[in-house]
C-alpha cells in the first residue's frame, strides 16, 4: 500500500516535472507573437509583406549567370531546391574550417564556384538571395547541426550573450532573458529567437540580416559593434539558433 502510494507520488511528481518541462518549451516565443495584429497580418499576407519583394528579387538573381564561370546558382542547385537549408545554418561547410552563416555560405559559393566578387555585407543582392533561400525553409523547424566542431563556437556565442558590455554595461541576457516580454521604448522585448531573418524591419524600410539587428543592439547598449566580418556574429547566431531549435522559420519576418 505504502509503496503504491510512493509510486503514485513519484508518478505525479514526474508528471508535474514533465508538464513543467513542456510548459518551459511552450514558453518560447517568436517575436512574431509579441507584435501587433496589424504587423502579424502584414507578415502573413505574401502580397503585403514587403520582404516578399526581396524573395522575388532573390529568385531572379538565383537564375542569373554571374562571374568568370558564367554560372547561375540554379545551374548547380536547381530552382526551388534549397528546402530546409536555412534551418541548419550557421554550419561549417567543406570549403571552410570555421562556421559561416547563410550569407557567408552564399558568398563562399560565389567566389569558389561562380568565380565572382563576393557581395558586400547587407547589399540588396546578398539579402535577396538569403531571403529567397531561407524562404524555402519557411515553416520548417530550426535544426542546428550536431557537428561537434560547432560546440566551441556555440559556447563562445553563449559567453558573448551573457557578457556585459558597452557604456550601459548590459548583456544580451539582461534584456532578452531577464526582461523579455516587458517594454523597452514602447516595444515588447523579444526572447531572442531569430527565426524570421532576414527580416523586413519597418524602421529600416528595408530587409536586414541578423547581423544588422545585432549591431543595432550593440549600438543601443553603447558598445562598439564588431566589424561586419567578425566571427563573433556567427558565434552569437549559432547560439541563438540553438535556443530556437525546433521553432518554425518564418522568413521573411516583418518587425516594427
Amino acid at each position, binding site marked *: 500500500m505504502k509503496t503504491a502510494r510512493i509510486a503514485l507520488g513519484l508518478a505525479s511528481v514526474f508528471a508535474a516535472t514533465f508538464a513543467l518541462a513542456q510548459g518551459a518549451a511552450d514558453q518560447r516565443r517568436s517575436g512574431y507573437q509579441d507584435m501587433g495584429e496589424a504587423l502579424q497580418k502584414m507578415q502573413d499576407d505574401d*502580397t*503585403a509583406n*514587403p520582404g516578399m*519583394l526581396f524573395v*522575388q*528579387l532573390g529568385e*531572379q538573381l538565383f537564375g542569373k549567370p554571374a562571374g568568370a564561370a558564367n554560372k547561375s546558382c540554379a545551374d548547380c542547385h536547381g530552382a526551388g531546391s534549397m528546402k530546409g537549408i536555412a534551418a541548419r545554418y550557421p554550419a561549417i561547410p567543406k570549403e571552410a574550417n570555421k562556421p559561416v552563416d547563410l550569407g557567408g555560405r552564399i558568398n563562399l559559393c560565389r567566389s569558389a564556384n561562380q568565380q565572382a566578387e563576393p557581395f558586400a555585407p547587407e547589399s540588396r543582392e546578398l539579402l535577396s538571395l538569403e531571403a529567397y533561400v531561407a524562404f524555402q525553409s519557411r515553416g520548417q523547424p530550426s535544426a542546428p547541426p550536431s557537428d561537434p566542431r560547432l560546440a566551441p563556437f556555440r559556447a563562445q556565442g553563449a559567453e558573448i550573450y551573457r557578457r556585459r558590455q558597452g557604456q550601459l554595461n548590459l548583456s544580451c541576457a539582461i534584456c532578452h532573458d531577464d526582461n523579455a516580454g516587458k517594454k523597452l521604448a514602447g516595444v515588447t522585448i523579444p526572447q531572442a529567437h531569430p527565426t524570421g531573418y532576414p527580416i523586413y524591419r519597418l524602421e529600416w524600410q528595408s530587409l536586414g540580416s541578423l547581423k544588422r539587428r545585432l549591431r543595432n543592439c550593440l549600438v543601443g547598449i553603447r558598445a562598439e559593434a564588431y566589424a561586419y566580418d567578425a566571427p563573433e556574429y556567427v558565434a552569437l547566431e549559432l547560439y541563438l539558433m540553438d535556443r530556437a531549435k525546433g521553432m518554425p522559420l518564418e522568413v521573411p519576418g516583418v518587425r516594427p
Partner: protein
Amino acid sequence: MTNVLINAPKTAKPGEIVEIKALILHPMETGFRPGTNGRLIPRNIIEHFVATWNGMEIFRMKMSPAIAANPFVSFFAVATESGTIGLRWTGDEGFLAEEHVAIAVG
C-alpha cells in the same frame, strides 16, 4: 529591375466591390537626407500611381516624400466588366513600372 506584388481577385460578380492591393520595390528617397559624404542624397520618389480598368482610369494617387520605401497601395473598385486592370507607377529619374492583371466579371 522593377519588382511588384499585386493582390487582386481573378473573378468577381457584376457590381461587386473588389479590393486591389499593390506593393512595389522603391527606395522613396526623400531628398532631405544627407549621405555618408555629408551631401544631400537627391530626391528619388514615385510621383504618381494610376490604375485603369480596360484603359479607363479608376484610381489616381499623388505620392510625396513622406511616404515610406516600398509603398503599399490598396483601393476599391466596382467590378462592371471583364478585362484588364492596369497599374502604372511613374516617378523621379524616369522611373516607370507597369503591370497588368486580368479579371473575369460574371
